[in-house]
């Protein structure tokens, strides 16, 4: 206890020395707090993103193998098409077999079927208006018994006798306007069937959100949810029914009750020329319903899309090998969303790497500076060590006292540094993030320039500027937003959009404080090591003789 008391007294009475050490520790801890906060937040963002967008694999066509085999056989185009059609689709049983793997967290699959629907319009902006003019001729014959010369003494044509017959022709022109989809074909709608809520990742992730009604928990019922766009366009609401038409046999119809309306939260249109989201024409139902359609018509080929949720990156190769061993056709291959995830989190990961490097450099430089200062400090306090040792204080206790002094100063420095770090970490993190986004965006801009797309963008911007000028009630921010052709760079050229994560909310939280404390203790121990060695080596007699 007296060691602590003596350490505190020593700190109080040697302010200059301890303030200098304190300032160095404040600088180190502020830099560490900032970098740790950025690192932690970046990790959280990446983890959150990865949780929201888990690493998934699916089975897609291996076009390379397909084309290679077809070309090798010197087949004609017709033969190639026939050969392609003969490739067997992935079956539900195969998916279930592949799904039983230790490399997966879980798996699910959806049935997709293109169908048409009775009396509802597809949500597409390719609608055209056609006006049909119908001419109807009506003939009216009127007979009149003469009671006088009512017609001016003229004889009616072709009629003699006691009565007069009049035939009148009337031509009616009817104009009919019909709005139809010029691209509309059979199968304008996509029926997507799920097996359970767990499989409906778009709803779990928040990409889709029910705005009215609900998704029915009965995955065997004839129920569905439709998009807001489809509902608005066709005046449909919860409780309405839609009639699905078998695309191959139009006499087969099925009724689905709408239990919910959903909206898509993500901008997945990927195409500036459409006003609807890509999910607008999706009718989300259950696999039981789709299987009912399939049972009645075996000619229909559904698309079964499996989604395998992988454990981690290492599982990709293992799972691919496993599936190949289980007999996946050479015309299929496993594809993953790893590149998308990495592209989306690249900026944050770059910031994280920078923060880690900066942290290491700070700690090395800080550690060296502290050791040097501590060594100078020990040389200055040699006499004190000599006196304490002479009056019987053990080496270990002298070392503990010196270490405690440094630890107390370090703790104060850490607190102040953490405070500074918490204030400055957010703007610094976001500034770094902005630089990363700018760098990534310039990459897109360069690619766009290579394609000459920048000219189109500029024209578009100019047009939008004109429109915006007319809209005087728009705020500056809104105008800015409108002018920014964000969509132009979304998933173009095979590169994921960079604005997935635009800022880091770096926070010096409990976790960061604990790490900071750990850093403080390690730095204290390392720099105290120098004093401990010195104390162990110093002979009190020599010190006091030197002093005398």
């Amino acid at each position, binding site marked *: 206890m*007296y060691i602590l008391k003596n350490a505190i*007294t020593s700190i109080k*009475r040697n302010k200059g020395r301890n303030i200098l050490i304190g300032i160095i520790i404040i600088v180190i801890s502020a830099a560490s707090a900032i970098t740790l906060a950025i690192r932690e937040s970046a990790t959280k963002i990446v983890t959150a993103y990865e949780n929201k967008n888990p690493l998934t694999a699916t089975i897609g066509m291996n076009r390379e193998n397909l084309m290679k085999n077809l070309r090798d056989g010197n087949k004609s185009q017709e033969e190639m098409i026939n050969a392609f059609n003969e490739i067997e689709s992935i079956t539900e049983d195969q998916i279930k077999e592949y799904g039983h793997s230790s490399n997966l967290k879980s798996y699910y699959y959806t049935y997709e079927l293109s169908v048409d629907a009775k009396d509802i319009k597809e949500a597409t902006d390719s609608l055209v208006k056609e006006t049909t003019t119908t001419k109807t001729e009506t003939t009216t014959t009127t007979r009149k018994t003469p009671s006088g010369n009512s017609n001016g003494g003229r004889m009616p044509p072709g009629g003699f006798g006691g009565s007069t017959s009049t035939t009148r022709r009337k031509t009616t022109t009817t104009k009919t306007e019909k709005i139809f989809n010029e691209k509309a074909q059979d199968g304008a709608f996509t029926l997507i069937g799920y097996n359970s809520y767990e499989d409906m990742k778009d709803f779990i992730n928040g990409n889709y959100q029910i705005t009215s009604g609900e998704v029915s928990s009965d995955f065997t019922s004839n129920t569905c949810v439709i998009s807001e766009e489809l509902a608005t366009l066709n005046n449909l609401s919860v409780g309405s029914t839609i009639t699905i038409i078998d695309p191959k046999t139009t006499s087969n119809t099925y009724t689905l009750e709408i239990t919910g309306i959903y909206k898509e939260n993500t901008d997945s249109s990927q195409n500036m020329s459409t006003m609807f989201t890509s999910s607008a024409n999706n009718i989300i139902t259950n696999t039981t319903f789709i299987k009912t359609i399939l049972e009645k018509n075996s000619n229909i080929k559904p698309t079964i899309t499996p989604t395998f949720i992988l454990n981690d990156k290492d599982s990709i190769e293992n799972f691919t090998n496993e599936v190949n061993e289980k007999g996946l056709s050479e015309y299929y291959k496993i594809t993953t969303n790893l590149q998308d995830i990495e592209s989306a989190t690249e900026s944050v990961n770059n910031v994280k790497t920078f923060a880690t490097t900066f942290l290491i450099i700070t700690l090395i430089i800080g550690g060296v500076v502290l050791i040097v200062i501590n060594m100078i400090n020990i040389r200055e306090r040699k006499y004190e060590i000599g*006196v304490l040792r002479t*009056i*019987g*204080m053990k080496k270990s206790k002298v070392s503990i006292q010196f270490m405690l002094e440094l630890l107390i100063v370090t703790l104060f420095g850490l607190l102040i540094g953490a405070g500074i770090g918490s204030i400055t970490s957010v703007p610094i993190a976001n500034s770094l993030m902005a630089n990363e986004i700018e760098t990534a965006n310039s990459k897109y801009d360069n690619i766009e320039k290579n394609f000459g797309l920048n000219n189109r963008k500029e024209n578009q911007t100019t047009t939008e500027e004109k429109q915006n000028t007319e809209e005087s009630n728009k705020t500056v921010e809104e105008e800015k937003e409108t002018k920014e052709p964000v969509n132009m760079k979304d998933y173009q050229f095979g590169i994921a959009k960079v604005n997935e994560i635009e800022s880091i909310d770096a926070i010096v939280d409990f976790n960061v404080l604990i790490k900071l404390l750990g850093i403080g203790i390690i730095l204290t121990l390392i720099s105290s090591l120098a004093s401990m060695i010195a104390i162990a080596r110093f*002979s009190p007699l020599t010190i006091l003789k030197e002093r005398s």
Partner: protein
Amino acid sequence: MENILKVSNVSYRYKDANKDDYVLKNINYNFQKGKVYAIKGKSGSGKTTLLSLISGLEKKYEGEIFYKDKNLKKIDLDNYRNHDIGIVFQSYNLLPHLTASENIILSMDISKIKEKNKKELAIKLMEKVGLNKNQSSRRVLKLSGGEQQRVAIARSLSYNPEIIIADEPTGNLDKETETEILNIFNDLAHKDDKCIIIVTHSQNVCDRSDYVYELKKNET
């Protein structure tokens, strides 16, 4: 009288000295409680070296030193220095960032003295060596040389050791203060039954001591 400290055939040479170049050679002294001993000699005769051996600050020597029949080579010297022997230096060796009483209390703390009111005891000790309460709360650098030496003596008394060794305790002091300090040492020996060993050049100190040992270089 009982020998409290016995120096038996002690020889010492510096690490870098020649094989036969001893500072102290075959020294045999006995020290008793209640006596004042003066060890005198010319510069380089090994006075301070002998003192550092007795105080346990130097461990590598030939021969044996016994404190109450316990060989210093076999006991914990830190414990020996903070319980059994008090050391007073010519240059006082007080901690400058502490007050007079804090220096004494720190010594008590190191010695693990079980005293409820250490400050009160420190003041009593300071009064015993001729200092007053006001001086106890002053930083030692604000005290005069004589006052600092009194604080050093009070510190050496803080854990009530049986032996007090002093290296030129009056070397930096005027005659009057020297006399006062010597009075304190004599009182400690004759009234409190302490064994006082003073290394000195001063004839005055030798005159006031009960025994005088003279060290001569290269002489046994």
